[in-house]
């Protein structure tokens, strides 16, 4: 029982991989595995973006078709929720959608065995000192989702001020009746909190369930469950995060 407990704890919490020393001070910036996985995802997205937008032409062909379909999809999603001013918000929301899609389903690409498993498999001494690294979704770390939620609410505030000017934006706090002022202010605290916790909770819950299934019955069975918990749930949560953000933006901007 305690063995399962420690193993689950180890998988659930982000652990420090290495640290970057700050020059002229004793302080070191810890780099967790969440950050390393985020770097890998960023590299993959940048690489794909470069490949798919190379040699653009007026008449799309080949891979440019795919890129245009993706952009069109994001534009329509934002257009439905935000309305007239969608052009201002589509690039950011599309970026967040792409990042969340890749980061939520990244654990299905986790095919490289870690150092511990290699050591068990081959009994070779070298593998014992390998860093214990696995591709786990970075969104199961609450720091990542909190960051994304704060960026979303900043988008709502800045977009609102940009579109309605400062006076118009301040007026919307008194929108239906002036008595609603405290609730409207409270909105700006509750919205990012619920966005953050929703994404974190869903991904972590799916991750824990998958981890338990891996422990209970490793062959074949996890593959079937992975389709729901990793793929379907991950894609749905990425869509919901962007959908809700664009809804909040639309509420203020319209």
């Amino acid at each position: 029982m305690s063995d399962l407990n420690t193993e689950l704890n180890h998988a659930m919490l982000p652990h420090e991989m290495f640290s970057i020393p700050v020059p002229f001070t004793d302080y070191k910036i810890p780099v967790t595995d969440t950050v390393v996985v985020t770097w890998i995802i960023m590299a993959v997205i940048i690489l794909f973006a470069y490949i798919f937008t190379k040699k653009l032409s007026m008449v799309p062909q080949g891979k440019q078709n795919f890129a245009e379909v993706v952009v069109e999809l994001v534009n329509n999603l934002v257009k439905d929720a935000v309305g007239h001013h969608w052009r201002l918000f589509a690039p950011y929301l599309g970026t967040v959608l792409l990042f969340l899609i890749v980061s939520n389903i990244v654990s299905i690409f986790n095919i490289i065995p870690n150092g511990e498993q290699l050591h068990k498999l081959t009994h070779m001494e070298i593998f014992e000192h390998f860093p214990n690294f696995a591709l786990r979704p970075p969104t199961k770390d609450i720091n990542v989702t909190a960051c994304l939620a704060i960026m979303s609410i900043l988008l709502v505030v800045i977009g609102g001020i940009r579109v309605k000017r400062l006076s118009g934006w301040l007026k919307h706090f008194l929108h239906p009746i002036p008595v609603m002022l405290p609730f409207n202010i409270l909105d700006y605290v509750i919205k990012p909190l619920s966005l953050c916790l929703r994404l974190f909770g869903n991904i972590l819950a799916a991750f824990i369930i998958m981890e338990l299934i891996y422990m209970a019955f490793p062959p074949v069975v996890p593959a079937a469950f992975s389709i729901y918990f990793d793929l379907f749930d991950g894609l749905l949560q990425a869509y919901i995060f962007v959908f809700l953000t664009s809804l909040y933006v639309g509420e203020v901007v319209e």
Partner: protein
Amino acid sequence: MNGLVAIAAAIAVFTGVGAGIGIGIATSKAAEGVSRQPEAAGQIRGITLLGAVLAEATAIYGLFIAILLYLKLG
């Protein structure tokens, strides 16, 4: 002490019952709405998703409390 914390976490996760009932009601009404007016399917899908997501949030808060109990006290 450990056992009590486990029971507390289990009670916190019971919030999922309410979320399950809420999402069930939302989806059943959405199905009814679409069968009555198939042309409004697109709009109904968006509203259903929003309702389901807001109902689900309660379950997530319960889960979050359970995880906090497990990590901080267990």
